[in-house]
Structure formats: structure tokens, C-alpha cells
């Protein structure tokens, strides 16, 4: 049988990084095909090539045996490929139907007028196949994330998509919403639509996919038959080395460095209290939206407290903005590096020095020599590669950008470092380096908080883990009791009294 989709030796180069090299595999019609890999393995890049956002540097793609080459996303759409992004790309104040017909509205009188009624009728028709409860005239912003995802799927059906690619569709879904989505996907597959299901969550892939391709560092490392493979096999393929099995060494001391007392905020944090010790790595786990990032932003002075207090070295500090937090010795390594971390066009040196320019200046003039010496020293310490200090930071790989941000807080002599998803969008090699850096910083006496969605990462790094749920700290788990199922049991609403969700394999 002709495969529905075939990748043949696809490669994609970006400045400073080989995002994909020589990726080839086939997917059959009606197959639910998992695409597994760590963050930065190249899954998203491959999807972007499939959906016409990027053009491959080399290699070719075939849809139903026909060689296709997309110049823009509309081309891919025309070839029957629909993409459902992790961050749903919808216009919030337009209606469900308007969003479904975005970019190619149904018109009357030769294209002069949009026919909203007809759009809504057709939208309702498409929705009725999978989720009849959604009103096509409702504004999309009134729907839950899971429903919005269904709308995207219905939109793909309207386009008569033959291939639907889903990028981490469950990152903000509850387990019951996932079940609903799994049903919809199975139904689509039975009607002959091919699904590419991208995830780094093994359970889900084992639950709904028939086969899976595993990627690592931009390469295809293997295909897995989900019926026969074990979780452990796949993890080894994904990670590629014993990264997660390395011995955990704790440098925690008994000295309390920071104490949070009853923190609340308008950003949903409620009554959060905890202590952070000198030399400790404190993990924070929880579902997306449980308030992990918001808690870090409170500590970093980026959001305001409505109640509670933060003590550092036993003294209460008032953090009105990040400047206050920085002078109190707190530095944030944010999750969205591009948006909140780097100044893209400026050099890696300036990005490193940004939080402490005052200390490099005399009489208001920056001392170039002093800045350069510190940059050489610190950026070598974090092992920046390539070691080009005047190069704009946007030309570095994600891992090296992250190292520069870490160096920023070394330059400002911060004692408390807050990491939000420290390895998101970073390849596996750099990931190990970031882990080792975090450990070295803790060994140096820094106090560290790590927020991560990747449970193996939290477990690998943390001396102690706080689990958040609905803006509250739901549980504290000591190193000795730290397992994935223990974290999950506390992270899911209403689950801490019941059983942890049954593993599907």
C-alpha cells in the first residue's frame, strides 16, 4: 500500500544548529503515528516542515505517493495537511465558526460578503461529527482549552485533511479531557485520516498510537511498535544515555536562605509557604496552569504579592519589581527564553551583563576591559559554545543562550536562582550540561528552585519537590519518596485521595 506520508532524508539547518538530519519514515493511511522525543529533539521542526512553515534544507516529502514541496502554510493545507499547534492559533474574540473559516471565509456575491450563517451551518456540521455540544456562534474565548482543540480538529475536517498533525495536544488537558480527545482521534483514524501525534509523554503515546518514531538531537533513532516495546526501551532511545540515572548528590544545608510565608497574588497563587535552604535544589512540579511559573514570578519580583511575605536570610524583603529582587540576590531564568530572557540582537556579553551594568561602570561609563574580563571568565565557566563574546545572542543555540542567562545571574552575584523549565527547547547534550551547571551552582552554595514539566528532570535534579495544584502547594515530597507516580498523584485535581491514573501499558 502507498504510504499516506513519507519523509525521505529530510534535513534542516539553522545558523549554529543542525535541527534535523536525514530523517526518513513512512506513515500509513489511517495510522495514528506517535512522534516521540525530548524537547529540542527536532519534532517541532519536522512538523513545521510538514505544515509548510519551514522548507527543508534537503530531502523530500510524499503525500499519497506524490512528491510535495510547500512554500507556505497554505500549500500544505491545500495538500490536505492540518496542523494543530500546542499553542492554539486562534483569534480569541472571533466566534468558533469565524475561527474555523479563518483565512478562507465562505462568501456570497462573488466574494464581496462573508456568509456568517452558512459558515456557522457548515461549522456545526463538522463539529457534530466529534463534539455536537459546541455552539459555532460562541466566541472562541468562551471555550475551554480542550474544546478549542476540538474546534481545531473540526476545522481540519472542514479542510478535508488527510493528515492531522498534533503538537503536544495534551499539555494543558486534564485526564478526562485526554480520554475525550483519544476517542475523537480513534474515530478519525477509523475514517481513514492519518494522525501524527507528537508528545514526550510516553503513557499517551502507548495508549493511542499504533507505531511511533523516536527522535533525538535532530535524528530519527528508531521506530517502535507500540504493542511490543516497553517504556524503558523508548526512554533509552529518547534520552540516549544514562542522563536520568546519574547519581543525585545533595548539597543542601540546614541554613534557611529564603522563606515564603503565605504568599498570595492576583495571578492565582494562594497561601503558598515554603522554605529554601542554602545549597538546596527545590523542585516545583504540577500541571501546566497550576501556578508554578506564577510562584517563580512572585519570588523574582515580576508579579506583586497581595498577601504574605518573603524573607531572605531572616529579613523580610519587599519585591516591587525585578530590580528589587535582583538587589536581594534573586535571579530568574525564565521559561520563554525568546520572550523574557534574551535581547536577541545584542551580544552575548551584553546579555550577560544586563542585570549588573552598574557594577561594570565608573562615573556612568561602562568599563570595557572589566566587562570583557568578567564575560570571558563567566562565559567560560558556563562553557559557552562557540566562545565568541561579541556574537549576537540570537545566533546561539537554545542551550548556549540559556548558559548566558545563567551567567547573567553569576555576574550579578545572585545567591538564589530560579529556573523555569530550564531545558525547554534545548538539545540533549546541552541538557546534561545545564544539569551539571545547576548542581555545580548548588555545590557553590547557591539556593536553587527548578520548575519543570518533565518529571524525570524534576526527579533528577531536586533535593525536595513541592507539587502545586490550582495555585496552592498541594504536597511536599522528600528526596527519599520521590517518584513520578507520587508527583502525579498530588498534581491532578481530586486525585490525591484516589488512585494514581493507571499506566496504560
Amino acid at each position: 500500500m502507498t504510504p499516506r506520508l513519507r519523509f525521505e532524508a529530510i534535513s534542516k539547518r539553522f545558523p549554529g544548529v543542525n535541527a534535523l538530519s536525514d530523517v526518513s519514515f513512512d506513515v500509513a493511511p489511517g495510522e495514528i503515528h506517535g512522534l516521540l522525543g525530548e524537547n529540542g529533539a527536532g519534532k517541532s521542526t519536522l512538523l513545521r516542515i510538514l505544515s509548510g512553515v519551514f522548507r527543508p534544507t534537503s530531502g523530500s516529502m510524499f503525500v499519497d505517493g506524490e512528491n510535495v514541496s510547500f512554500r507556505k502554510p497554505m500549500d500544505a493545507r491545500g495538500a490536505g495537511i492540518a496542523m494543530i499547534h500546542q499553542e492554539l492559533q486562534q483569534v480569541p474574540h472571533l466566534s468558533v465558526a469565524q475561527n474555523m473559516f479563518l483565512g478562507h471565509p465562505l462568501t456570497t456575491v462573488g466574494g464581496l460578503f462573508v456568509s456568517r450563517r452558512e459558515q456557522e451551518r457548515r461549522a456545526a456540521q463538522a463539529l457534530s461529527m466529534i463534539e455536537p455540544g459546541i455552539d459555532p456562534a460562541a466566541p472562541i474565548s468562551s471555550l475551554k482549552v480542550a474544546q478549542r482543540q476540538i474546534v481545531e480538529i473540526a476545522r481540519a475536517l472542514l479542510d478535508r485533511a488527510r493528515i492531522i498533525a498534533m503538537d503536544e495536544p495534551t499539555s494543558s488537558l486534564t485526564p478526562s479531557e485526554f480520554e475525550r480527545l483519544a476517542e475523537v482521534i480513534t474515530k478519525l483514524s477509523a475514517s481513514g485520516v492519518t494522525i501524527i501525534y507528537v508528545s514526550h509523554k510516553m503513557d499517551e503515546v502507548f495508549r493511542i498510537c499504533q507505531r511511533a518514531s523516536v527522535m533525538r538531537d535532530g535524528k530519527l533513532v528508531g521506530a517502535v511498535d507500540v504493542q511490543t516495546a516497553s517504556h524503558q526501551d523508548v526512554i533509552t532511545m529518547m534520552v540516549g544515555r544514562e542522563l536520568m540515572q546519574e547519581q543525585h548528590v545533595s548539597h543542601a544545608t540546614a541554613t534557611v536562605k529564603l522563606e515564603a510565608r503565605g504568599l498570595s497574588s492576583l495571578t492565582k497563587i494562594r497561601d503558598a509557604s515554603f522554605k529554601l535552604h542554602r545549597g538546596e535544589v527545590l523542585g516545583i512540579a504540577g500541571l501546566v496552569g497550576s501556578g508554578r511559573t506564577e510562584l517563580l514570578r512572585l519570588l523574582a519580583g515580576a508579579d506583586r504579592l497581595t498577601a504574605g511575605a518573603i524573607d531572605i536570610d531572616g529579613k523580610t524583603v519587599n519585591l516591587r519589581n525585578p530590580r528589587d529582587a535582583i538587589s536581594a540576590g534573586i535571579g530568574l531564568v525564565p521559561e520563554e527564553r525568546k520572550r523574557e530572557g534574551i535581547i536577541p540582537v545584542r551580544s552575548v556579553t551584553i546579555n550577560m551583563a544586563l542585570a549588573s551594568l552598574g557594577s561594570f561602570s565608573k562615573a556612568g561609563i561602562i568599563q570595557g576591559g572589566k566587562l570583557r574580563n568578567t564575560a570571558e571568565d563567566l562565559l567560560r565557566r558556563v562553557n559557552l559554545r562557540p566562545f565568541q563574546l561579541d556574537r549576537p545572542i540570537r545566533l546561539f543555540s537554545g542551550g548556549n543562550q540559556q548558559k548566558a542567562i545563567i551567567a547573567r545571574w553569576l555576574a550579578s552575584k545572585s545567591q538564589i536562582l530560579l529556573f523555569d523549565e530550564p531545558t525547554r527547547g534545548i538539545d540533549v547534550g546541552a541538557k546534561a550540561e545545564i544539569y551539571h551547571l545547576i548542581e555545580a551552582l548548588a555545590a557553590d552554595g547557591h539556593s536553587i528552585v527548578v520548575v519543570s514539566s518533565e518529571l524525570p528532570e524534576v526527579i533528577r535534579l531536586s533535593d525536595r519537590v513541592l507539587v502545586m495544584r490550582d495555585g496552592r502547594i498541594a504536597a511536599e515530597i522528600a528526596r527519599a519518596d520521590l517518584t513520578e507516580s507520587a508527583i502525579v498523584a498530588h498534581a491532578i485535581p481530586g486525585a490525591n485521595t484516589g488512585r494514581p491514573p493507571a499506566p496504560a501499558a
Partner: protein
Amino acid sequence: MSNSPAAADTKLSPAFGRFSFSLRDAGTLIGLVVIMAVFATLVPGFLSERNLVNILQQSSINACLALGMTLVIISGGIDLSVGPTAAISAVITATLLLSGTPVPLAILAGLGIGMACGFINGVLVAYVGLQPFIVTLGTLSTYRALALIYTGGNPVLGIPAGFRSLFNGNLFGIPMPVLIVAVVALAAWVLLKKTPIGEYLLAVGGNEEAAYVAGVPIARTKITAYVISGGLAALASLILIGRLGAAEPILGNLWELDAIAAAAIGGASLMGGKGSILGTILGAIILGTMRNGLTLMNVQAFYQLLATGLIILVAMMIDRATRGRE
């Protein structure tokens, strides 16, 4: 690992950084040279020393405004109110001079008024959170109205010679306005390249969210840019009324457009985060050269406007094409 190769690497590049003659500035300079070469073949005497000095003098007012505009644009903003700011400052300075205020005091007052206008813009942008385009569009009308109301719409005539000689003289054969603007440009260059404030401007314009998380004082940085822009608008108006001997409340009409054009030709990105002092000066000289050359060729004003517009568009297209290859 041996340190020497890395050290050699890092020693080389700062040398270029220090002279700060970027590829983009070189492009602007080439543009200027080409335009001059064209006029040199078409207009006899175009390259005479006298005409070249003339071009610099004619470009000085726009260059002065454009320097402030560059800093505002780098910070991610825009200042449409420079013309009316200049007008308010001009009519108040002129009135003070006529009422017998000592010249240095009147100059300080004029610059102070300009900076106050900029401060208001900055506060509305940084603290009230309005968009720079809208804020300065609003103050564009407001400041103009204030200048008109203050003078009843009449020009302030008879500015004393003591003041005028400051801006009309020569030093070493170079007109004072050119020297003043050269000093301002040098100061702006130092500000942008050598001080934390300069880095903050680039950071805020380059990525405000990241700058905030890194502890950059966002509001203070933005306000600084608008205050400098207002102050330089006032300085430009002083140069002008020194030359004319009169201050009109309608002075500075459409100045903002020339200033933005000079900054953009010089490589400032209206998205913020990018801009060059040297480039802006070259951009202002390019515009001045066009006007001078076309006037000498007796080209009608309509066509001069056309040529200026085309130069801006061509410069931006070249800019876009070269950046696309990065």
C-alpha cells in the same frame, strides 16, 4: 583547553567594536557618496568647499532632531511631537530674550521647556502605558496649540543680536550650528555605546519583557529618551531662531518626518532595539544633500519632495534586502 585561540578571537572583534563602523553604516556612507557623485557630475561647483559646508549647515537642524529621534526609536518608541516642542521652546525663549532676560538663562529656559515637553511624553508612555505613536500624536497638536495660544498666532520678532551671534558665527571656518550638532552627536554616541543608559535603551527596544526580567529600569529608560528628544528639539529651534531672528509659533511643521527619515536611512529600526548615531548623521546629510543638489539644479519643489520620498523607500528596500540574507 589552551586559552590563547579564544583570547585571540575576543581581542580581534572589540577592535572593530570600538571604532563601531558597522557594515550598515558603511552602506549609508556608500549611499551618500553615490548621491554626491551624481550631483558632482550634474552640478558644477557642487563639491566646492563652500557648498559642502552649506550642506552641513542645512542638515544641522534635522540632524539635531534626528539624534534625539534615534534614541527614542531605539527604545521602541517614536516622537511625533518634536516640531511643536521646538515651536514652544522657540517662542518662549524669544519672549524671554525680548523681555531682557540674560542670554544664557533664556537658552537654559528654552532647553528646559523642551525637556519638560519630552518628560510629559515619556511619563504618558512609561507610566500611563499609552502607545508612543498616540501619545506624541496627541502632544503634537497640544504643544502646537500652546505655542499658538501663547503668541496669539503672531511671530515673536526682533531677537537680540547677542543671542543671534552665538548661532551665526564660525569657528575655524565651520559654522556654529555644525559644531554644536557635532558635539551633540559625539555625546549621543558615548551615551549609546559606553553607558548603561545606552545599553538599557537598546535592551528595552530589543525586548522589553526580557529587559524587565533582567532588572532594567524600563520607565526611567524610556523617559530619558523622550527628555533627550525634547531637549534636542529645543536646541534645534534655538539654532533656527538664531539664524532667522524671529520665532514663529508654526515653526517646525513636519520636522518629525525628516527626523524619522534620517534615523531610518541611518539604520534605526522602527521596531526598536537598533540604531546608529553615525548612521543617523549620515542619513541627515543624505537628505540635506538631496535638497541642496536639487535646488542648485533648479528642480521644482514638487520633484524635490518626490526625490526625497524615493530615497527613503530605496534605502529601506536595500536595508531589507541585505538584512534578509543574515
